């Protein structure tokens, strides 16, 4: 098992290198720079700033020194928030985004798995079509539409929930979590329906029924484990996706999370901030994928067995 994890971590290094290189080059290709503003800045000030941030060096030298910093876990100083490092900015925004992503994940799993399982129990009946059509709608509806819609209905018409902020008013976390989670709930519903449908047609489900087990036990004990394997495999990338994809929701609901910094950084050409967040997200995606794989192995006794013997 340990060797499996180690080898996966080693495989991640080239992936991250490619991500860094491509992002580094792309950001530099974009027109404008961190210090080009509307109002005229004296050229000597710009030169001084560029020298301070090593922007006067040749690009390959900048690249190498950036890699050197990264190796020490240092994302460098922010260009647009003077005096603050990218590390600090990420550390400040991450807990909020992580909390949002966590709630969204809960919403997604709860709604998704229930809808998928219910649909799979009676395929090709209204009990299947209804949740699956809703799931299709959920996939198709982008969060920048879903968010304002929810705000309109629950915040303005019904006045049940606050429409913005984070941790200031009671219940202000509900709408963002639902907005962010719905799309993933829809995916999870489709995955769990597919997984459950396949498992429910397996011979061992017939065996379980032949033993005279109540249908509840057949579904929850015998079918669910195998049926949810595709969902588990999806959870890793999904969680990473929730973290990195939260900026729309954060913008709609005025949440001071990491996603908003990310978007602003892109507009501001805050090179180090863009790079830092990208590398950070890429690392998260790799880690969560690995985590999902480990959980998938742990669920499946056959694979668990193979891995434990290779220790």
């Amino acid at each position, binding site marked *: 098992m340990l*060797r*499996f994890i180690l*080898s996966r971590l080693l495989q991640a290094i080239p992936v991250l290198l490619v991500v860094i290189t491509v992002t580094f080059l792309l950001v530099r290709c974009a027109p404008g720079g961190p210090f080009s503003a509307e109002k005229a800045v004296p050229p000597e000030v710009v030169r001084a700033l560029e020298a301070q941030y090593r922007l006067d060096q040749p690009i390959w030298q900048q690249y190498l020194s950036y890699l050197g910093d990264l190796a020490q876990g240092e994302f460098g100083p922010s260009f647009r928030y003077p005096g603050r490092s990218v590390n600090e900015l990420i550390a400040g925004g991450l807990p909020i985004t992580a909390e949002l992503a966590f709630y969204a994940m809960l919403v997604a799993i709860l709604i998704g798995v229930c809808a998928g399982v219910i649909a799979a129990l009676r395929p090709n009946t209204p009990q299947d079509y209804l949740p699956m059509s809703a799931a299709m709608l959920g996939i198709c509806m982008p969060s920048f539409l879903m968010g304002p819609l929810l705000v309109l209905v629950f915040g303005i018409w019904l006045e049940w929930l606050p429409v913005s902020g984070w941790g200031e008013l009671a219940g202000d976390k509900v709408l963002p979590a639902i907005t962010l989670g719905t799309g993933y709930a829809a995916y999870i519903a489709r995955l769990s329906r597919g997984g459950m449908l396949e498992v429910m047609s*397996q*011979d*061992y489900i*017939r*065996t*379980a*029924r*032949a*033993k*005279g*087990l*109540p249908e509840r*036990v057949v579904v929850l*004990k*015998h079918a669910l*484990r*195998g049926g949810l394997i595709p969902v588990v495999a999806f959870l890793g990338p999904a969680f990473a996706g929730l973290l990195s994809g939260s900026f729309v929701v954060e913008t709609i609901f005025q949440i001071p999370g990491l996603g908003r910094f990310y978007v602003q950084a892109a507009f501001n050409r805050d090179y180090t901030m863009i790079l830092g967040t990208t590398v950070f997200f890429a690392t998260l995606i790799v880690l969560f994928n690995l985590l999902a794989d480990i959980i998938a192995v742990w*669920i*499946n*006794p*056959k694979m668990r*067995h*193979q*891995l434990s*013997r*290779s220790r």
Partner: protein
Amino acid sequence: MTLLSIENLAVHFHTRAGQMRAVDGISFSVDQGEILAIVGESGSGKSVACYSLLNLIPQPPGKIESGTALFEGRDLLSMQPDILRRIRGNEIGIIFQDPMTSLNPYLTVGEQLIEPLLYHRNLNRQQALKRAVKMLDEVGIADPETRIHSYPHEFSGGMRQRVMIAMAMIAEPKLLICDEPTTALDVTIQAQILSLIKALQKRRNIAVIFISHDLAVVAGLADRVAVMKEGRIVETGPVNDIFQKPRSDYTRTLLASIPSGSKSHPPQPSDQPLLQIDRLTTCFADNSGGWLSRQKADKKAVNEVSLTIQRGEILGLVGESGSGKSTLGRSILQLVPVTRGSVIFDGTDLVGLRQKRMTPLRRRMQMIFQDPYASLNPRMTVFDCLAEPLLYHGLATRKTVTAQVLALMDDVGLARTAIRKYPHEFSGGQRQRIAIGRAIATKPELIIADEPVSALDVTIQAQILALILALVEKHNLTMLFISHDLSVVRYIADRIAVMHRGELVEMAETESLFVNPQHVYSRKLLSAIPTPTTAQT
């Protein structure tokens, strides 16, 4: 005393293609302490009939149209689902065909074994586990205290079937339904499982319904036999009557289709070897140690096998699953990388031969695979399938190809009108005819047939074997006939080679092997063959 009595049971499947009468008004009964065998070919409705008793058929598309099934006076078919559920696994146990897929891979066998006790007997886990250990011991699983915590994948096929039997028997049912319980197993394992079922039945004096396609298996086991065909019971009677004085034509056809005896004509002595194999070894990387284990031990699937096949000869190659017989066949054709040794085909060593020199030789050796459902491309018509090798090897031109394909179809007994049809429009036997046609299209000298009749019903099997024999004679083919079924091999082969764990343990003329087997494994294998003549007297 009658335990179960079924009257006029009809089960239909309603599909888009129309209504299919899977079970078409059958009546039979089972007495306490009796073994009733239901025999029939695939699609005869034997499994559907038994599954519908316990409401285990998928509904829809299945629907029980009519009938009663009185089990100790209560009608199973009109019962509330919840009451029927209490009978399933409690008073009626059932064993399924494929032990590899019938156990839940995510739960330990202990967890699965105790479920009937937890839900029907209201025992607590401790008591149930104790009973389960005892039950595992009774079905012959060594070290049951440890094994009960194992997962199904840690058991072999035969052992899994023992677990299935334990699971079906643990709540002490009065009736046990066995649906082809040994079909997926090797012949020696089959013999063990059959005697286990018989012993348990005697000890507990329960009734057994034994579903099988194999009359030979049934002969040594059942008290009475019901023969099913196309949803109806064509004949019911005591086992001896069925075998000695069958009344219906269909039963007679079934009995006649059991391969028995050996080839009628003696092999022509030939001393021209077509294929000489010398110390052939094929290894596979053993992945059971996990994907990342460094010490990948090589598993020798074929170990130092040497044999010679003469021109015009049919050499039977027998062995159980995992004995390496299929790998040997594939190694000869260089379909898997050979580790050591030589394969000399008509003077040329095929091992390590370059692609360019191999291609013309490929035309001269062909293969027939076991599963005609999987080995034909579903998007190719019969014409495409048979024309491809002809055109590829330059044996036909665009102008002549249709005539040649039609001739091939005549050869293998396919109607000429079927030329534009796709594989799914054919039955299993017809598909195997297509596969044989494809193999002989290039006028090969050597054919390797890997279990060509194992997936077929017994009457179809007899037809395909006759076809193979006729083609071998007509085209003067040389054949390596791989099979796990000794009666089939005896029927078709001139000589037989026996493989066991990758090694060739014995090779002899067919009759002398059957009369006087030398190797201890050959003897074990031969004694495990069920034969219709072992019917009880």
